[in-house]
């Protein structure tokens, strides 16, 4: 890792104070998006009130937002076409309490005209970009911490709590502190059997769970340019795991091609200026990075896979807003085709959306996975948040493609969750122990 302390935040704020005296340098993606949405010349450290292009909530957080709107005395949302509520965290409902929350959401949708994605549609962080609700250059907030996912398509998207979400649903505006930015560059090339998940786990291991707190990360470099949009989303999705407010990437030809046929909105890509000021710049050589594993019970407790190979597992999980996309299902299907999941392992799979489920069926990946022994559950968050669909038993180890392995995350505080790429999970469920996937990439 090379660290370039171009300008510390304190010197950036010094420059801000001197802006009338010294011409300011260029802007980061975050500063440009906040300038455009607040009608101000926004720089890191400024507090702005900005217009949001979209607001989203899920079934864990929306009921509290609806209640906050009631307390505000608000009967309608600022623009029904710019608000969506998604039932994905406990979907279909596993318990009557959640059923009641789902009813509150459906009734809110009928009353306000906000878009409702009901059970089975998929995970919010796949649905929102997939439907074209947000496009490059947008600013949006979601009542879910992994809202940072759409940074991969050049949207400044960030997670907020329910009361902040309610304020944005009511007014179409929210206050923000314009964040300092950290520039993370991946040079070199990914080696066979190594994936974008390994890159972001590696970063978490390097800078820790609060390594980018209050900052926006900008991801750059030849390796990012080479990745598909699916693979880029895996990286931006986990920006929050190092505390970041957003995980932004430039929009390129691949991004714009990905948007073809996804609604009427016109992308307005935002590039950083060449002389933008970053609080910190980190450069990694991806060529030297192998498969990575986050060990229990912290996402930054990361090791190269060699250190944990052979750890027995009782359950594997492929899915989530991190790794439940078509490319992820393909990677796993390619490894598992014609093979069998180990007799002592339950292998649970959830596509990130109904569309991905259909596409994976069409491509034959679902058949490959089921024939190998996988259990397919409803598109949604499923076992990742521990509400249903595969709560592990006491003492069991799980290998998962999710983004979090906190104690109790999958519903049992006496279980142990390891995080890895879809290839690592697929290779591991065959052998019943954590397995280096590079053997399948000769």
């Amino acid at each position: 890792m090379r660290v370039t302390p171009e300008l510390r935040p304190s010197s950036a704020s010094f420059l801000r104070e001197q802006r009338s005296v010294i011409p300011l340098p260029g802007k980061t993606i975050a500063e440009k998006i906040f300038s455009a949405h607040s009608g101000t010349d926004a720089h890191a450290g400024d507090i702005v009130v900005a217009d949001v292009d979209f607001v989203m909530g899920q079934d864990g957080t929306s009921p509290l937002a609806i209640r906050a709107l009631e307390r505000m005395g608000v009967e309608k949302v600022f623009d029904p076409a710019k608000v969506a509520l998604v039932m994905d965290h406990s979907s279909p409902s596993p318990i009557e309490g959640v059923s009641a929350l789902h009813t509150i959401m459906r009734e809110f949708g009928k009353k306000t005209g906000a878009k409702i994605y009901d059970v089975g549609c998929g995970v919010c962080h796949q649905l929102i970009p997939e439907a074209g609700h947000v496009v490059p250059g947008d600013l949006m907030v979601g009542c879910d911490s992994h809202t940072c996912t759409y940074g991969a398509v050049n949207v400044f998207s960030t997670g907020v709590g329910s009361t902040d979400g309610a304020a944005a649903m009511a007014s179409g505006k929210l206050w923000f502190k314009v964040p300092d930015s950290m520039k993370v560059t991946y040079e070199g090339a990914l080696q066979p059997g190594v994936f974008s998940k390994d890159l972001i786990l590696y970063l978490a291991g390097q800078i820790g769970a609060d390594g980018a707190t209050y900052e926006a990360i900008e991801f750059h470099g030849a390796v990012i340019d080479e990745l598909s949009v699916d693979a880029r989303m895996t990286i931006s999705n986990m920006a929050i795991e190092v505390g970041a407010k957003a995980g932004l990437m430039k929009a390129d030809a691949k991004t714009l091609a990905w948007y073809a046929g996804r609604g009427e909105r016109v992308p307005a890509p935002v590039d950083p200026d060449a002389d933008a000021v970053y609080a910190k710049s980190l450069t990694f050589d991806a060529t030297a990075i192998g498969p990575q594993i986050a060990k229990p019970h912290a996402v930054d407790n990361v090791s190269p896979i060699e250190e944990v190979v052979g750890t027995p597992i009782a359950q594997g999980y492929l899915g989530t807003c991190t790794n439940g996309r078509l490319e992820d299902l393909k990677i796993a299907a390619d490894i598992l085709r014609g093979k069998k999941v180990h007799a002592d392992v339950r292998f649970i799979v959830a596509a990130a959306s109904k569309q991905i489920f259909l596409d994976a069926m069409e491509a034959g990946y679902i058949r490959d996975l089921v024939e190998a022994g996988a259990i397919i559950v409803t598109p949604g968050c499923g076992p990742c948040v521990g509400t249903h669909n595969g709560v592990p038993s006491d003492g069991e180890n799980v290998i998962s493609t999710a983004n979090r392995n906190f104690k109790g995350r999958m519903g049992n505080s006496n279980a142990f969750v390891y995080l890895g790429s879809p290839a690592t999970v697929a290779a591991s469920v065959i052998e019943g122990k954590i397995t280096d996937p590079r053997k399948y990439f000769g």
Partner: protein
Amino acid sequence: MKFSGTTHKYGRDIDTDVIIPARYLNTSIPEELAKHCMEDLDAGFVGKVQPGDILVAEENFGCGSSREHAPISIKAAGVSVIIAKSFARIFYRNAINTGLPIMESPEAVDAISDGDLLSVDADTGTITNETTGASFQAQPFPPFIKDMIEQGGLVESVKQKLLR
């Protein structure tokens, strides 16, 4: 606002999943959420916390999920104020929005042990460890946030703006 109470001290990176596990998010009633507060980290917490007690933690308190149920459950469990070396970004906003006082003071955290009796003046930012006699000054809120708190929080401030 002045608080005094016994310290319950925890480590760094206390995530919202251990503060209130997702399996209990089938309700948004504060008293119900309070019953499971900190359960996956310290199953004895709910049994020992007294009204007015103070949570003290190292860096990055409240990291992870955006669930507002986390500050709601801590407040409903009786905690008067959280003092940490730093807070995760979303939790920081959620605590302000739900009316749970929070203070950042690395020096105070280093000088407070589990079980110490503290008194806190949230208006001046003064933290006094009554057990040791040491006193500390927390970082003040930025003026924008102070104004919002004075208006009665985000709900009130939106209400006032929309009615105007």
